[in-house]
């Protein structure tokens, strides 16, 4: 049976990279004594698929991985077992079941939502909350994209599905954005912010942003009419 696990990553765990998170879960699943399925061959490994790698330094409230289990005692039991073996900063949020023909987590990712703040001392020199929506509503957002061979320009606009200002007038305003996170058009929130600052004549320093991934989404809409739902909305209770 295919199972989708939703988890949050916070605190010091933001410094653990994607490959190490994969290793972490392989060991956690053993510690939790989950009856997981293995691949065949001389060095069998757990059948496992992660939705979208999270960059080092980011925290998240909506990460996903799919595993395959042979037997189980219900979603709640699995969630509890896993939470019992987590370290601080890792929390299992829910466990759902997938249909046999469902796309795996990685293939399902279409978009991700982020909350972005400036770290203290790294706020831009201009009154950025007032300028944000003007920037977003401009007809195109052109950025330079360096590849190994050449430098191209790219319009980010079609890849930003939603963007808004949070906590306007408060002490720590933030940007919330829903952007493309599919394998073909993944947009890093830092790139959007860099474009925003450049449009206002400033450069983004590499450590200026504190970024939280809020959730990861699949597109269940029709061609040309996207409808984004969190990846766990595809799963079913069990």
């Amino acid at each position: 049976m295919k199972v989708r696990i939703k988890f949050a990553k916070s605190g010091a765990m933001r410094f653990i990279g994607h490959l190490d998170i994969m290793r972490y879960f392989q060991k956690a699943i053993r510690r939790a004594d989950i009856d997981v399925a293995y691949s065949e061959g001389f060095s069998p490994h757990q059948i496992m698929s992660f939705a979208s790698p999270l960059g080092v330094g980011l925290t998240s409230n909506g990460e996903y991985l799919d595993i395959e289990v042979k037997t189980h005692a219900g979603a709640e039991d699995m969630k509890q077992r896993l939470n019992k073996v987590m370290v601080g900063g890792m929390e299992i949020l829910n466990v759902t079941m997938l249909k046999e023909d469902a796309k795996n987590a990685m293939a399902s990712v279409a978009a991700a939502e982020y909350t972005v703040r400036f770290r203290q001392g790294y706020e831009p020199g201009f009154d950025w909350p007032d300028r944000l929506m003007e920037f977003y509503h401009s007809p195109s957002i052109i950025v330079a994209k360096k590849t190994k061979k050449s430098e191209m320009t790219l319009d980010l606009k079609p890849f930003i599905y939603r963007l808004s200002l949070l906590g306007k007038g408060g002490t720590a305003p933030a940007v919330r954005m829903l952007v493309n996170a599919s394998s073909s058009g993944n947009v890093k929130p830092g790139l959007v912010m860099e474009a925003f600052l450049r449009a206002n004549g400033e450069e983004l320093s590499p450590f200026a942003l504190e970024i939280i991934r809020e959730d990861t989404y699949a597109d269940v809409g029709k061609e040309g009419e996207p409808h984004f739902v969190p990846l766990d909305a595809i799963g079913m209770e069990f």
Partner: protein
Amino acid sequence: MSELALRDEILLQVEKPARYIGNEVNAVIKDKSQVDIRVAMCFPDVYEIGMSHLGIQILYDMFNRFDDVWCERVYSPWVDLDKKMREEKNIPLFVLESQEPVRDMDFLAITIQYEMCYTNILQVLDLSRIPLRAKDRSWEHPIVIGGGPCVYNPEPIAAFFDIFYIGEGETRYRELLNLYKEYRKQEKSREEFLRAAAKIPGMYVPRFYKVEYNEDGTIQSMLPTEEGIPERIVKEVEMDVSHTYYPEKPVVPFIKVTQDRVVLEIQRGCIRGCRFCQAGQIYRPVRERDLDMLKRYALAMLRNTGHEEISLSSLSSSDYSRLPELIDFLIEKCGEKKINISLPSLRIDAFSLDVMGKVQDIKKSSLTFAPEAGSQRLRNVINKGLTEESILQGAALAFQGGWTRVKLYFMLGLPTETEEDIKGIAELANKIAAVFFETVPKDKRTNGKVQIVASTSFFIPKPFTPFQWAPMCTKEEFLEKAYATRSAIKQQLNQKSIKYNWHEADISVLEGVFARGDRKIADVIELAYKKGCIFDAWSEFFKGDVWMEAFEELGIDMAFYTTRKRELDEIFPWDFLDCGVNKEFLKREWKKALEETVSPNCRAGCQGCGANRFGGGVCFENTGKGYGNGNEGKD
């Protein structure tokens, strides 16, 4: 969760920030207001190396079982962070669990596993803002205590330590901690505490000893400076290895480390008595762990870590008497959970090949032989009981079983070595290749050709071995020998199947100085460190020229420590320590070596080394009473 000691900016700029954040599975977090003693346990090398060390895991577990103690870990910051910490000057080195400064701990316990980490010890002290020299410390600083194999000659680093713990950590730490609590409560001075500590068995407190030298630079005497301080310090041994501390929940690192697996120590010590090997002497007598204990711990550790591999650990594992039962048990239990079993240091024979065939992918694994010397004559000198016949037989069996890769380990520069012995290395490698072509018909060579990798290290005489009297080669001699080995291999018929590697010579020479060094070496280590030497065990960071400069500036002659011929009655810097085997035994073995005579192992015939005084282990296996009365081995 505690605040991190390093800012995000720093953590995002250094390679592998996971080295510095703690928070690993099974890391122990305690409420600091509820403990009396804080211990920083340090392995002075990078996290991935330090985290792989079993001894630290054992002591970490032991300390944290004490309710009044919180033991945390610290490793050497890698060169990138080291640089930042020196630039910024306001980030003191911290322990991983609480992320609090090492300087605020009560004890800084450093395990010293190899000589080439000595500058890293200074790095840890320096970055912690602890004075490098023990004499400059006050109660504002932790008690710096050293342990591990290198403390069997602690003299080159004696100036940097308040205490050395000689021997196995399981036995005396509780006593030391109690003393500490009592003395702190009574507001006694640091000096008073150290004086009292020096009277606990196994504790060496360098400041209470004075060394007098002869005119030629050798030692005339080493004596306590005060009444009541012991003249000799006997190593500590845990005799009941089946009912003692062992971790059920080892810490599981996030990043891949050298030992990314459960490690099960099946026995301590080695019965073999190879004459170059320090471990084979200082861990005597051999003590086996109980099979049931090992089974229980294996399952508990696998359950608590989630590791996908378990490895047996000991010197010469094949000598563990219950090995077949243990392996059967592991194969059964691990098969269910797809857990790999790794079996290092097995003697190659029908049994081990059968086992390895079951637990490893033959195509990917290689066979390891450690003949250490190329000729039977020299193998007799070093008492390595491995014959050419048994190597070739083992290889033939293995080739029939499908193995095609062979690793061979040798040493160059052993006492009495001749050109013939060096040629023997090449010839042995060649014969093994020939065995492959004889035993495996052409159409069966499915896994390609045979690959033989011969590696040589340079022989470094170590304290408390029969070779402690042996002169060591110079760098030039070492390199000559390596070139001679290389050209001898080139002349072999099967040379295309043989690859040859050798170890760096100048690192070996320095290691030789440290291994048999005295207190005068401390200045060199400090000077080299101040000139930028660090991570000397890593060839990419080893600065041979800077070390040479340091020796020259201080007028210290390396040859005095390495190539000099030592007389049988010379007092060595480490002679005030008693590692269990007595000097008379070592002398006998040294003489037998020069006569090319072998000594049987502990099970085949006790040599009366003296370790039977600990009252257990292999010495009492057959008779129930210690048969090693000291006379058996005498000529």
